[in-house]
């Protein structure tokens, strides 16, 4: 089972496929199952369903975990490659910011529009 997954290590998003498990032994790993299940969906998971932020579903776990990590990074004031004013203390989470920050999660079905909408809805 080597899905190209994004998981959260102590809330930070990482690629599980490039991690040696032993290196993360003392960190708390959250996978999609830890985000929410069918009975208790996380608002972001529900937003992905409402906005059809997927088709085949293969990348979806990674997109959702990545989005959670990305939103936490943004909350902490982290800039991105499209942030015009690096010195700014607060950065508006524009569509361009979301797209750049989510670019490490490929979706070959091309559900990118729905994913961005889901993240905007889930972030509110």
């Amino acid at each position, binding site marked *: 089972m080597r899905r190209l997954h994004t998981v959260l290590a102590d809330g930070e*998003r*990482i690629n599980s496929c490039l991690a040696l498990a032993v*290196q993360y032994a003392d960190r708390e790993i959250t996978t999609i199952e830890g985000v929410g299940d069918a009975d208790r969906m996380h608002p972001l998971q529900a937003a992905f369903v409402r906005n059809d932020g997927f088709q085949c579903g293969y990348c979806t776990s990674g997109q959702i975990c*990545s989005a959670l990590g990305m939103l936490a990074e943004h909350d*902490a*004031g982290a800039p991105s490659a499209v942030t015009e004013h*690096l010195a700014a203390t607060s950065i508006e989470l524009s569509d361009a910011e979301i797209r750049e920050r989510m670019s*490490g999660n490929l979706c070959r079905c091309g559900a990118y529009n729905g994913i961005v909408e889901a993240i905007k809805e889930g972030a509110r």
Partner: protein
Amino acid sequence: MKAFSYLSAPDVATAVRAIADRPNAKFIGGGTNLVDLMREEIERPDTVIDITRLPLTEVEELPGGGVRIGALVRNSHLAANRLIRTRYPMLSQALLSGASGQLRNMATVGGNLLQRTRCLYFYDDAAACNKREPGSGCEAVGGFTRSHAVLGTSAACIATHPSDMCVALAALDATVVAESVRGERRIPISEFHLLPGERPDIETTLTADELITAVELPDVPVAATSRYRKVRDRASYAFALVSVAAALEVTGGTVSAVRLAMGGVAAKPWRAREAERLLLGGPADVESFRRAAATELAPAVAQPGNAFKIELAQRVIVATLAQLLAEGSAA
């Protein structure tokens, strides 16, 4: 991936002793490059020594205005650091344009210095590659060379260094601090990466038993007005075709300070010293930017697939300097 033994080092002294005692051992930090290469069976260490628990995760101001960056500071944390964002924005931008959010959360500063090339023929174990198997030849020559080098190449190798961060470090005259059982060694960034020559398999001057503990940035006031511009084949999450780290200070229409380095053009981050020399003290205008860029690229040698890089590199230099000039005059 080949089976390997794993040990975790609690402190620097243990780490450097461990590697000195073991043949064919590798340090592992974020693992983003090493684990990938191990999965590809290109790197086949017997032992990996985990250094992620070493206390090398601080970014500190140095007396005299410089900054010391622990080797295990994650790329994302360094990019978001206030000191870096305000005093060395080109470094923040370089880091942020590399890889993806996830990978930047894993990758360390030390590991980024040691990234290996993305040459298609290096990655393919069925291809001849002097970097992977010294003496086997270079199949990239005559093959797909869109991503390859135009400066400092040799008959043995035309690969590029893939790092964005290192381009900024080269422009900033960073120093790499390394530790081994023999003690500490300080290596200027300009002497850290090697051009391929006859031995493209030897990529840096770091010895096999040395551990990178820190990168130090000197005080570079001009770097406060700096940019990193990366040009690639899609909008994000791709290696550079050409990138430029530039810093510019203009006083009374004259270039009073300048830093310039390029990525994607050579086996090492390419400090454009010739261009800097021409620019410094000269008029700050597009014409002189053009002349400086052309001079820097004059020795470039193209492959059939990458001739465009010579022109592209000059255009990106000019455009980036022009943008800094415009921003400087606006300020």
